[in-house]
């Protein structure tokens, strides 16, 4: 099977969505200082994983589904969700994607195929397999994208689901975004494969499915690898485990503290816990967004001026999302009792 490489137009589409995710996330991050108290609880950013997210979802077709984790702001942006409704949800407002009932960790947009996000590590993996069973029954060559982190591969849900998905040849693509850290624990500290110097993709061997490792900072590499997995799934040949190596450029999440304490983002754990400032700075130098911009300019797909224009346009779009969300009212109190049951 050969997957068609994205043409120039598609590469610009990928770059635009990478920018959109980054700019959206930057505004989520800045909300903690610019509008203190507006975001409650815990948020988790995808900066550093944009290439992986967009490269993967560049294969998403109408009728497909995607499920993800609490680190879920990136996917719906690519699938077409309105950033205003997403920001309003993160701000707990009535115009939120989920009416203010879910918040940052539970963005859902069923109309666009973004089926749900569990805040419990690994718990969403079997949900994706269930959605894939439904797709298998529909027989329309539809597939399910299942996103999770490296930490989730230490959960039973991961192992149980990979076994069944392979056994039943479910049309699902398991995209493991390996960012090297489970909060403040390094992968080598908690993963036998990592400790032995093996890629995490070898876990697929235990379940008789292909396992591939890809540079998650390169959207074209991700698109090629995930594309092969998608073709395999659409052809009814079953799932693939894709280990997409990314570096999370922000801390795991904003500060965890009771009300009254500022909830801004601390420095990355590589610095605060492990004192590895050079590791973090190297990751910043490899930031996938400027890296892809430079590649596009170098290959002539995009001029520097055009890239700057796109960035300005995206910044404006995301500024509007913040303005909209801040002005959106809180939901009516009684709405807390809606949607408990269908």
């Amino acid at each position, binding site marked *: 099977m050969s997957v068609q490489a994205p043409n120039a137009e598609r590469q610009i589409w990928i770059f635009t969505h990478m920018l959109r995710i980054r700019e959206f996330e930057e505004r989520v991050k800045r909300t903690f200082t610019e509008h203190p108290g507006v975001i409650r609880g815990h948020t988790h950013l995808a900066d550093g994983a944009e290439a992986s997210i967009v490269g993967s979802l560049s294969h998403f077709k109408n009728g497909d*589904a995607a*499920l993800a984790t609490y680190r879920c702001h990136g996917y719906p942006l690519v699938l077409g969700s309105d950033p205003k409704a997403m920001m309003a949800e993160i701000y707990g407002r009535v115009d*939120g*994607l*989920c*009416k*203010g*009932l*879910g918040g940052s960790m*539970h963005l*859902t*947009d*069923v*109309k666009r195929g973004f*089926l*749900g996000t*569990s805040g*419990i590590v690994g*718990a*969403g*993996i*079997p*949900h*994706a*397999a*269930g*959605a*894939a*069973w*439904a*797709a*298998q*029954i529909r027989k329309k060559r539809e597939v*399910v994208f299942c996103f999770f982190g490296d930490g989730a591969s230490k959960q*039973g*849900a991961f192992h*149980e*689901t990979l*076994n*069944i998905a392979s*056994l*039943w040849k479910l049309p699902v693509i398991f995209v493991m975004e390996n960012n090297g850290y489970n909060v403040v624990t390094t992968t080598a500290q908690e993963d036998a494969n990592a400790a032995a110097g093996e890629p995490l993709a070898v876990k697929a061997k235990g379940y008789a499915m292909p396992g591939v490792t890809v540079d998650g900072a390169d959207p074209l590499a991700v698109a090629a690898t995930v594309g092969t997995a998608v073709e395999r799934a659409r052809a009814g040949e079953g799932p693939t485990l894709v280990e997409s190596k990314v570096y999370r450029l922000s801390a795991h999440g904003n500060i965890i503290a009771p009300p009254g304490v500022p909830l801004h983002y601390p420095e990355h754990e590589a610095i605060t816990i492990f004192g590895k400032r050079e590791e973090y700075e190297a990751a910043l130098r490899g930031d996938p967004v400027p890296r892809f911009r430079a590649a596009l300019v170098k290959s002539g797909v995009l001029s520097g001026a055009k890239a700057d224009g796109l960035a300005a346009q995206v910044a404006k779009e995301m500024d509007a999302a913040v303005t909209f969300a801040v002005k959106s009212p809180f939901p009516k109190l009684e709405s807390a009792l*809606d*949607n*408990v*049951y*269908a």
Partner: protein
Amino acid sequence: MAQLPFIAAVDAGIHQEMKRDATVLYFGQNLATTENHPFVAAYGHERVRVTPISETAEIGIAIGAAMSGLRPVVELYMAEFMLVAMDQVVNEAPRFRYMSGGQVKVPLVLKAGFGFAAGWAGQHTGSLTALFMGVPGLKVVVPSTAADAKGLMATAIRDDNPVVFLHHYLLTLEHGEVPDGEHLVPFGKAEVRRAGGDVTIVATGWMVPRSLAAAEKLAAEGIQAEVIDPRTVAPLDLATILKSVAKTGRLVLVDQAPRHATVAGIIAGDVAEHGFSSLKAPIVQVTARDATVPYSEPLEAYVIPDEERIIAAVRTVLKARR
């Protein structure tokens, strides 16, 4: 009407719904392993599948399938096996409709036996109903007759929410009249199993026949107990219980679970709050003694509520004055 054992009535409820609705799935461990398995023969492997021993994946897959428009019934055999996958039961299935602001429905049924007090010792005998009943978004069904087993299963499958369907293992082979053809029993409607004016007894599952037997013995002494079977504990038909207590003024709650893990305690709280003026005596709860269920037969019988303890509780509430 046909005489059916309880467990066949549960199957009849699943068949009824699988026949009329192609979106209903049925799967679990040690199920559908041959082509002549009745559900495989009728509906095929697309909808009826055997799973590995992977409760988290089984229930999680049911959630994903349900969110995608299907209606899965997961065969879990024993309520304790849900404990292996408690996150999926309590913190996944009932959360998605709410957290998505009503965008998704999660119509699934978790079918599990419970309370197997027949020498199954400490880990296969629990009465876990109360663990599930307070979870917003979950419905919890506890049939005590064959007819209800069929009708409540069918209603559970048609319900658009996750439903925990708990059937008592000691009722498995109890026969009962079961309506032929389409049969549905509504959720949230308690059944008065026996009418009486002196005392109200509320019980679920296997405690229903035990309470009825106790009531018969009391009737011989001229004491008329009203026995109420809530049938579903989420939603709970508190109105029927309050109405009965308004008539009798006395309430005995019978529950197979240990003292502080009961449905009884929840009902007692609600009746104390909303029916206090009707009560002529303090509520008495007959529960299991606070121990893991022991293996040895006389010890098992000692721990679990029996007719004698129910009768003694009734005598206590009849004697008491407020």
